[in-house]
């Protein structure tokens, strides 16, 4: 760990001085204090802490995997692994001119269905609004759902997608990663599926380990000349 990055817990002083406090830090007098368990980073004029735990906090445009938990005649409610429930209006699926005549919503999506969705809007005064109307979004009808900590998602994706691409190529699996920590894995072969799931679980457990990429490579039995 070089000087600019430190392991911190809530209450630890990250630094003092004229820095702008960003995510997961707070200013107490002169001191900038961490409010989370994580890794602190000091930039030229700002400080933040990357958390190692915590629920998913929706951000506009994030891709998430959601589970339908209920519906009214006008909208569905989705569990998106957050402190707030995702709100999917009927118009998003049926079109602008939708008006409820009967219980049509259950014909498209019912309780227990998984969807790939995008956060369309979110401010903390309202539940997050989601949409499934893009090409890469919609109901998920096959694959296995793996749940990881949302704070581990960047590690699973890797620099410019390098980690997840490595897993997909080594196993022939297709992986959809929700920023909320829910990940859908599908594969034609059961062995590929099992390997891909193991790799994902390994990253979830060992995200802080320095040579994680090598360990994952070894587990997937990737020879060096293949990468």
């Amino acid at each position: 760990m070089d000087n600019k990055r430190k392991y911190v817990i809530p209450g630890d002083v990250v630094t003092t001085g004229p820095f702008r406090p960003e995510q997961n830090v707070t200013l107490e007098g002169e001191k900038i204090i961490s409010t989370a368990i994580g890794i602190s980073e000091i930039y030229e004029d700002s400080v933040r802490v990357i958390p190692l735990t915590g629920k998913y906090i929706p951000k506009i445009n994030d891709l998430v995997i959601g589970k339908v938990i209920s519906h009214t005649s006008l909208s569905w409610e989705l569990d998106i692994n957050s402190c707030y429930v995702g709100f999917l209006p009927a118009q998003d699926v049926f079109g602008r001119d939708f008006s409820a005549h009967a219980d049509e919503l259950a014909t498209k999506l019912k309780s227990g269905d998984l969807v790939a969705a995008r956060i369309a809007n979110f401010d903390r005064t309202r539940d997050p609004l989601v949409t499934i109307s893009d090409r890469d979004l919609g109901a998920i009808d096959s694959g296995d759902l793996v749940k990881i900590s949302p704070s581990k998602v960047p590690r699973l994706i890797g620099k410019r997608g390098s980690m997840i691409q490595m897993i997909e190529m080594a196993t022939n699996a297709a992986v959809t990663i929700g920023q909320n920590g829910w990940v859908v894995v599908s594969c034609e072969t059961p062995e590929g599926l099992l390997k891909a799931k193991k790799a994902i679980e390994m990253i979830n457990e060992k995200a802080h380990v320095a040579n994680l990429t090598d360990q994952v490579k070894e587990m997937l039995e990737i020879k060096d000349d293949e990468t």
Partner: protein
Amino acid sequence: MGSVSVIDQLKKTQILELLEQGKRIDGRALDEPREITIEINAIPKANGSARVRLGDSEVLCGVKIQPDKPFPDMGDKGIFMCTAELLPLSHSTVETGPPQAPVIELARVVDRGIRESHMVDVSQLVIEKDKSVVGVFADIVVIDYDGNLFDACSYSATAALLTSKTPKWTMVDDTITLVDGEESPLPTTTIPVSVTMGKIGNHIIVDPNGDEWDSMDARITITSDSDGNIVALQKGGSDGFTLEEINQCGDTSVRVGAKIREIIKAAQKGSQ
């Protein structure tokens, strides 16, 4: 479980598809329970205790033994009482407040399994007839939930009672007095073991885990004693069993119960 948690449809479909091939999502055989670990004397200050893990379900039973008044028409018998509580930290859907019907059912089914087997010999728990008896209280708390609390709670109570030590009391001048240094094992007569089976479609599985529990259409819990007799039974859930299934479950519960009894006995032996 608390209020209904929604299982994701993909998982439910997977569970059923695998069952059609005679397989389960965690690789177990249809009549195979999960790994059971039993920690005796987890609460040393109680008269007896056992912490049980059944897969990822975790429960703790503490036994308190203390003098009590006998029931009005049972002056020649001690008191045995078994309770169960779902702690709110065991699952996000558990609410605080007075227990709801599913938890009350859990507690009563576990209590009956032990009571009807006559495991605790209450005739040996009298201090003075009609005046003062020994009360044995087995209180179970659920710490983590992953399906099948009936069996997890039953094993914890059985293991705790089997390894409990009771102090000795006498009456001295009409006062209940503790006799120092005269602790003895709680008198028990048999080892009841419950086995819970779930029904998903036409398939019967032993010890459903959390996901299987959420996908079940019906369940049955059958308790047998050391002689292989069936002493208690509870059917639950909103579907029905055929006569053949009921008979099959009876046989399975005695067979699987015998194996689990050995695990409980090994834990008892290990603690001595």
